[in-house]
């Protein structure tokens, strides 16, 4: 939490601005840089069908304050819209649905601009994509006319604009994210419990020196001093003893358990509390912190990836290259530099913090030097390198569609097999049939179950004989292409969350298709 601070420019004591007050609860999640990215964005919704899921998605983007949104929708408000779409009122009957929704959405946040399309009957969708204004991201509600979808896809491909397509019908829905090219994220916001990196097995001289000075005559310390040795110093002390005795650090699980017993034995038990809190903390931390730091598979993937010529010029890949060199040289990533809270005297704790921070600074400086030596590296901000170093263990690369994604048929085979084993394995049934059924109605909503089955059979031969597929298809046909508001609100919630992640480049976006089953209340992610 302490990382998230209001703008550096506002003096610490000054109260929040009006905008900071309004957005307080979200600034605590994506900070002012995330907010700025939202405010610079322009999101287009191409709306069709019963029309609620896209509007619900936009609602959750207008509230946190995207810069602008445009709704393109050729429908006229009809009676049944009033039963499913909250951003339509009685007065809107007979008017352009795009216009009515835009006005009622815009009302939610005066900071957000809204626009709608088409304003004239003669305007065709082609005009929309010829306007000078660029869209940051496009949301496309399904079912849609094939021609319109094609226009959207051409635009997205040409300008490398992310596309989110959403389909909600009855109790089911899915949404899919199409990113163009690779999408690297530095600010992934890992859980704070995951980020502890204390380097207990590879302490640098300043750290081991400091630890040794605190534990030199550990037996003779008075009760207060003994009970306030920070747990990481305790661990360093006992690790040194262990290594002297065994020749190496504890590595196996059994070693670590034995090591833990050694630490436990070091605590003084005859105290008013019947033990020592700092030793309790040390014992609890053994299994998690006494292990060599290894690269996560996500980081390995980034290191192994060979960027294209164009990508190589981006800040991200220039810094990655420098970090890779650092790793090759030191066998470790740059130190993030934070120290978790632990029982300790204030001054001792602050000193420890300083030791970690200056090592982190030293690592970042080394990487910055490498960056500066690379082509294009001179323009990279030192702060950007700092942020990268802090998050180095958690960087993530999301691949655009294509590449390693699997074809529908092979996913289907895999999922059907999993379903055959589901009862024995006690796993829930696959939601892939839901995707197959909804995707078969991407262009025509109210198909009969036999029509849907026939379409599925074309993509995945044999699927239409599976009982589960037949049932799911019947459930889809039951809705006749109509949305249930709850399912659309839920799907719009998830889709908007992913859009926020993509626009702010924070947290980790879903990759790439999320299916929701409103009967079982569960989701499943597929990479299609």
């Amino acid at each position: 939490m302490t990382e998230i601070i209001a703008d550096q420019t506002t003096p610490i004591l000054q109260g929040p601005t009006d905008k900071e007050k309004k957005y307080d609860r979200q600034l605590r999640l994506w900070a002012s840089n995330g907010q700025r990215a939202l405010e610079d964005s322009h999101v287009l919704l191409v709306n069709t069908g019963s029309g609620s899921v896209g509007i619900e998605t936009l609602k959750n983007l207008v509230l946190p304050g995207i810069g602008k949104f445009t709704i393109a929708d050729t429908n006229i408000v009809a009676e049944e819209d009033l039963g499913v779409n909250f951003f339509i009122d009685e007065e809107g009957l007979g008017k352009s649905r795009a216009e009515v929704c835009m006005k009622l959405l815009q009302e939610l946040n005066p900071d957000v601009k809204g626009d709608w399309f088409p304003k004239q009957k003669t305007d065709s969708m082609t005009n929309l994509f010829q306007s000078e204004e660029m869209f940051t991201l496009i949301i496309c509600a399904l079912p849609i006319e094939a021609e319109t979808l094609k226009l959207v896809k051409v635009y997205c491909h040409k300008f490398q604009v992310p596309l989110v397509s959403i389909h909600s019908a009855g109790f089911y829905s899915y949404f899919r994210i199409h990113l163009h090219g690779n999408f690297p994220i530095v600010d992934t916001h890992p859980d704070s419990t995951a980020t502890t990196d204390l380097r207990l097995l590879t302490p640098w001289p300043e750290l081991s020196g400091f630890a040794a000075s605190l534990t030199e005559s550990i037996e003779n310390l008075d009760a207060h001093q003994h009970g306030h040795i920070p747990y990481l110093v305790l661990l360093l002390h006992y690790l040194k003893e262990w290594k002297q005795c065994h020749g190496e650090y504890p590595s196996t699980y059994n070693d670590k358990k034995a090591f833990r017993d050694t630490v436990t034995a070091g605590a003084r038990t005859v105290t008013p509390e019947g033990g020592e809190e700092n030793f309790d903390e040390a014992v609890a931390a053994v299994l998690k912190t006494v292990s060599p730091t290894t690269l996560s598979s996500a980081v390995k993937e980034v290191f192994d990836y060979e960027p294209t010529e164009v990508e190589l010029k981006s800040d991200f890949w220039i810094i990655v290259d420098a970090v890779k060199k650092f790793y090759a040289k030191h066998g470790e990533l740059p130190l993030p530099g934070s120290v978790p809270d632990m029982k300790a005297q204030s001054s001792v704790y602050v000193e420890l913090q300083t030791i970690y921070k200056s090592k982190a600074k030293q690592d970042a400086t080394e990487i910055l030097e490498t960056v500066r030596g690379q082509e294009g590296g001179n323009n990279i901000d030192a702060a950007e390198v700092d942020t990268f170093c802090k998050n180095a263990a958690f960087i993530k690369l999301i691949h655009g569609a294509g590449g390693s994604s699997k074809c529908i048929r092979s996913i289907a085979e895999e999922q059907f097999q999993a379903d055959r084993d589901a009862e024995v394995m006690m796993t829930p049934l696959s939601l892939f049939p839901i995707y197959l059924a909804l995707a078969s109605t991407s262009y025509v909503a109210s198909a009969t179950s036999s029509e849907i089955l026939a379409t599925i059979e074309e993509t995945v031969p044999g699927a239409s004989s599976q009982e589960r597929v037949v049932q799911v298809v019947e459930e889809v046909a039951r809705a006749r292409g109509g949305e249930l508001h709850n399912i659309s609100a839920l799907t719009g919630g998830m889709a908007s969350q992913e859009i926020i992640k993509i626009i702010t480049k924070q947290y980790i976006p879903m990759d790439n298709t999320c299916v929701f089953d409103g009967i079982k209340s569960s989701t499943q992610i597929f990479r299609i």
Partner: protein
Amino acid sequence: MSQLVMVENINLGGVGGRPKSRWTYLDNIRRSAGPFCDPDAEFGDESIAMFDSFKVLVIGAGGLGCEILKNLALSGFKNIHVIDMDTIDVSNLNRQFLFRASDVGKGKAEVAAKFVMNRVQGVKITPHNCKIQDKDDDFYMQFTLIVCGLDSIEARRWINSTLVDLVDPENPESLKPLIDGGTEGFKGQSRVVLPTMTSCLECQLDMHAPRAAVPLCTLATIPRQPEHCIEWAHIIAWEKEHPFPKLDNDDPEHIKWLTEKALARAKEFNISGVTYSLTQGVVKNIIPAIASTNAVIAASCCNEAFKIATSTNPALGMEENYMMYSGNDSIYTYTFKHEKKDDCPVCGNVARTLPVDPNLTLQEFIETLAARPEAQLKKPSIRTEEKSLYFQSPASLELKTRRNLKLKMGKLVENGEEIGITDPSLGQVSFRFKLKFSKVFVKVAMVEEKTKGEEAK
């Protein structure tokens, strides 16, 4: 573009032709059985008329509540009550979409009810601007089901125990399904409780552990984090100096005073990171909240409410009853059955075992009760079968039992003894705990001698 989604009016699967209406999409589902429906469920005018007569209570008109009201209205519920004692604050506007800047200061329940009634014709929403504890059993008895979107654990526990108490085995109407949603940042959960039949919110209490409180001695003598300095300003400096008659968390002057105090303390100990925003966050215990997570969780709750009320598909409840949602790293949901606990203080019948260090004083034991995930009791009164250990009220009893606070637990109770705990904020329920000593009870005199011996070495 032509209308793509259409219901073919001519061929309505046996129901016969029907003009397009407001509830066309809902009726596609409400009027026909699906492959996963209970075979005994009925879908027709009669079942819809019954559904129309249901009365639903929404507790909370905040981030989740606004969504819940919208969703229920568009799920066809006709008669909704909403209860919330809060007024609208400017920091609500980033997600509580039924409120505008001009509504700041007005009652949430009333503004929300009016807005939804105005937008969705035909729904009646009755607002109650009060605490849930102000309402009696008769009030709760009138509802078919209850949907809860609260940010307070205490209020949740109160309504949960009230609804469990309300169940009369002779009267099936007295069992009110409780659907509860909660969010924090990108995470949340929705759950369905069938009081007395399935795991209740109290059974699940340890799933929502409170944030560990910082020990007072850390604040007073060895602060290490900016939060410690803020808590010091909040708890110790404010008590000592009383710069204003009463601390108001929403008054910028008060927060500014605390920030200044915290900054001075942080400087003294070389700690960095105290800011106005952090101070406000710590003092108000602010939990990040966004529209998207609220949308997901509220809609999940309302989807279950709709399924329970219409039997249009099986709902969470008897089997799976809990959906966990997490959206910070991709999207992850886990839907499972949380088992009812025999030793649940609210719906179980066995005393729960509570490990306790006998070397703690009663005062320290009481402090740990607030932090323990399975207890979370802030103002407990405690008694054994024989004697009162400590009572918060009435004053005479408090005075009488106060001296026990300094005594060690090992002196006051036996290992294995049962104690009863009540907490006024949680209603009538009495928590039964069987104490189990987790350490050897060390007589104080001995400890002092031994410690001296150690130092002499």
